[in-house]
């Protein structure tokens, strides 16, 4: 299969190339340049469109095995493809938990059969994600995991986390920490502050995150081993990470679109679609997250795609499950909120949504370059539209962004040169 993409603007993490042709053979990029002409089985006209390396999500929940009524590998990866993600790393809080080889094998085999994008399982740090005994990281690495995390739960014991860092490092596995001090969080269900007081809900103070971020930074500094911090949401955490990076601590950090687009006020009226963990914070935090993305303190943007059934959200606020779906809104929200407003350049956005997450996870992805897999997306950034959750490819529709006006539409998603998603309005293919 030979494919020629013509006249697109390629956005790399470090530069932009206009009016480019890309020639793809057997799923790999073979030639790139202006005016290159090769005979191809198919030609895609990308005039007026941007070509980006396929997005890489370092943090999502595909819910498979165990919660297939929320999402499964087939539906989750179609949702990813629609949002422009060509590689996704899925968290291990499935049922059973990904803490042994057989569950890793299940995911990898099912992904080979049913997935339309690349699926990379993340293994648990501890058995059952219970925070006590290390899971079989070495064996899981051989079976195909690319990182470890107890995401959804923190590793409360500092001693266990220290052991986990040292042990995982030996196998070259990045450790991703969900930073939350459960004692300080104290069963809260939204950010602690004026809004939680008005709503009469127990609050999760921002320090529940900050205290754990501090611990992880000190552990990384003490052991000299890198750590990746998931879903950073507070101003103080951004500042702590900034200071740690200045003194040379090997830390990388992610945030999610909801932490730079929404505040705790989205919860008013007991809107369970705005319930997540970490919780939506304040205007000050949103400002700090944006600044952290701008100055590089926050390395990447992940979705934390967390599908839930309507029955799990259409309940009392305290009972509602945490999280929102994110694949199909992440790129447009990032473009609209950050690039269109001049906070990030197009290249910086590509770095944070593709190139850097691939680097952190040790994947040979996230670039448009000769010899690499042709994981590419074609995007129309002038396309303005209103988000309509009913059209999501995900099984779940739990998004607070229904009705939001955004810019930036994925017109086509290619994984190894194969179109796994094309927008109905795209005529170039």
């Amino acid at each position: 299969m030979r494919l020629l993409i013509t006249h697109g603007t390629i956005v790399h993490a470090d530069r932009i190339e206009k009016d480019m042709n890309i020639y793809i053979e057997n799923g790999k990029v073979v030639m790139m340049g202006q005016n290159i002409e090769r005979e191809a089985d198919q030609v895609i006209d990308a005039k007026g469109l941007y070509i980006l390396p396929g997005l890489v999500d370092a943090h999502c929940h595909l819910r498979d095995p165990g919660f297939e009524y929320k999402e499964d590998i087939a539906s989750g990866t179609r949702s990813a493809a629609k949002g422009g993600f060509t590689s996704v790393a899925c968290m291990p809080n499935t049922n059973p938990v990904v803490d042994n080889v057989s569950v890793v094998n299940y995911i990898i085999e099912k992904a080979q059969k049913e997935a339309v994008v690349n699926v990379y399982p993340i293994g648990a740090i501890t058995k059952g994600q219970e925070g006590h005994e290390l899971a079989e990281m070495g064996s899981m690495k051989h079976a195909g995991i690319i990182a470890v995390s107890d995401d959804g739960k923190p590793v409360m014991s500092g001693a266990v986390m220290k052991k986990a860092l040292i042990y995982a490092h030996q196998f070259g596995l990045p450790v991703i920490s969900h930073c939350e001090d459960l004692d300080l969080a104290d069963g809260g269900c939204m950010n602690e502050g004026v809004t939680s007081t008005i709503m009469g809900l127990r609050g999760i103070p921002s320090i529940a995150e900050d205290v754990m971020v501090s611990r992880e930074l000190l552990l990384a500094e003490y052991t000299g081993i890198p750590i990746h911090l998931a879903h950073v949401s507070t101003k103080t955490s951004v500042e702590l990470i900034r200071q740690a990076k200045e003194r040379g601590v090997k830390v990388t950090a992610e945030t999610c679109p909801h932490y730079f687009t929404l505040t705790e006020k989205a919860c008013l009226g007991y809107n369970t679609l705005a319930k997540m963990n970490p919780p939506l914070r304040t205007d000050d935090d949103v400002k700090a997250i944006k600044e952290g993305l701008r100055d590089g303190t926050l390395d990447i943007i992940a979705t934390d795609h967390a599908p839930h059934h309507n029955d799990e959200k259409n309940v009392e606020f305290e009972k509602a499950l945490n999280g929102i779906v994110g694949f199909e809104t992440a790129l447009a929200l990032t473009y609209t909120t950050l690039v269109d407003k001049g906070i990030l350049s197009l290249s910086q956005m590509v770095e944070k949504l593709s190139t850097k997450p691939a680097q952190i996870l040790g994947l040979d992805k996230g670039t448009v370059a000769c010899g690499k897999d042709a994981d590419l997306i074609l995007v129309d950034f002038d396309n303005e539209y209103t988000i309509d959750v009913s059209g999501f490819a995900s099984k779940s529709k739990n998004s607070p962004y229904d009705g939001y006006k955004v810019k930036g539409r994925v017109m086509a998603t290619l994984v190894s040169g194969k179109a796994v998603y094309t927008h109905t309005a795209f005529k170039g293919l």
Partner: protein
Amino acid sequence: MKLRSKDILGLDHLETDEINLILETAADMKKIVTSRMKKVNYLQGKTVITLFYENSTRTRVSFELAAKYMGAQAVNVSVSTSSVAKGETLIDTGKTLDVMGSDIIIIRHSMSGAPHLLAKNVEASVINAGDGMHEHPTQGLLDMFTMRETFGDLRGLKVAIIGDIYHSRVARSNIIGLTKMGAEVRINAPSTLMPPGIETLGARICPSIEETVEDCDVVMGLRVQLERQKKALFPSAYEYSRFFGMNPDNIKGAKKHALWMHPGPVNRGIEMTSSIIDGDASVINDQVTNGVAVRMALLYLLTGREE
């Protein structure tokens, strides 16, 4: 004039003219409550359901009597013996009651916002009889009614609210309602029981009981909600009563004519000494009577919205 919303979910969504309407209607209703012949037919043919997910004596009986004095069918759904105990969701329970023909569903729930969820899913009017740590609008209204009976006008009144503000839906409704009606609200609590940002609702935080009650027209004690305490937020009942309880010594600065209120049930000797609870200035029992009148007013006004 009519109430604007089909539901009474909190004082935060009632306008001052609606609050005045309710309080004025309650004054008429009180005549019925205190008369020898407690029966009118304003609610004849109407069905009122109380759906209580938390234990309650006074609020539940108060609503039930309010409905019955006006001729409504009043049905109590006891959560421990209903389908709720079989795991039915709030929405399903609500819809079931709704299609049986209820006109008003009165709900008490341990989770804040539960009445809002119910109201969105039923045709019937929903009255919040207390939701979690959020609001208890009928208590706020009956407290304001009680103050108005003595002082005539709420504007300029100085009201002290003392106790477990953090867990208190009574405090939130009173702060919101009283501030709306032009009263000045001061609050005092052990620092661990003061919710963050509460002053944005319009109350002023005072550091001591003495300073809180200084020159006040009304002093309201709040119950220490031992059952709502997930973790010990103060060391002991002894220490609470010693430093945060009201006693004849630390309340001397209140006005001579000051009223003493408490939403009940009282932990005697912890938040207030018995000498205050049973003293001449205590209107705790009037609050209970007024509760029936205010609830009658709400039932009357809600069922009258459509006509």
